[in-house]
């Protein structure tokens, strides 16, 4: 495999992985390569960006319960 293809495969993550990282980011710090790959994925994937906004909204909503 040529070097650039290997690099692309390392950089690209599927949505299923990005979804998991977006959720985990709410519970633990995401560092290094994972953080960078997630950042890049979100730049190009509207579906995962939407998911990110949705889980943020859920968090704000639950925090407002009883207020």
């Amino acid at each position, binding site marked *: 495999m040529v070097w650039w293809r290997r690099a692309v495969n390392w950089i690209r993550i599927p949505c299923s992985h990005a979804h998991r990282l977006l959720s*985990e980011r709410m519970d633990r710090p995401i560092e290094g390569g994972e953080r960078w790959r997630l950042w890049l994925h979100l730049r190009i994937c509207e579906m995962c960006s*939407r998911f990110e906004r949705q889980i943020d909204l859920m968090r704000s909503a*639950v925090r*407002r319960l*009883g207020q």
Partner: protein
Amino acid sequence: MGHLVADPATAVDEVAVEASSPESSLQGSLAALRPTLLAIARMQLRNETWAEDVVSETFVAALEGSRKFAGQSQLKTWVVGILKHKIIDQFRRTKREVSSDAQLEAAQVETFDELFAADGHRLNSPLDWGDPEESLSRTQFFEVLQMCVDKLPAGLARIFMMREWLDYETDEICKELGITSTNCFVMLFRARMRLRECLEMQWFGGAAQ
């Protein structure tokens, strides 16, 4: 013993004072909060008796500590703060049941095949939920949220509420429930996925609008 025989006029005054005392008006305000507090307690305890118990304990603590409250913050915020502590106490009292539900749930595997293709790409796009403030400003939205949390299995609902409402750190959750941190992240992910799906169907998909 003459001092025990009250002057009728004074006795009437005392009754009147008691009826409008801070304690009795606090009791009235607490009674009005009861349905909300019960619903919140049920969401995470998932047990009717426990929910009733923690709400009663909250009221007792609120009445005992009413001097500390003294109107300095909003009554509801103050009482909800007490409720949080009582729910945490309840989790500790019934630790065995609570952690066995969590461990049962930790053993489940959920792959969300309906959402992701074999290569991990998303098959259908999540809907655009629009302006978050619009939803957050509506009481009905919170009723749907509550219903969706109630639909989660007990183990998932509890861990989700511990993290998001009781504001536990994940390592504290692991310790309380006796699960690994990996299990904890996976369970929180599953809870969020299911809750997202339910909200999208019941609220954002147009069913409630």
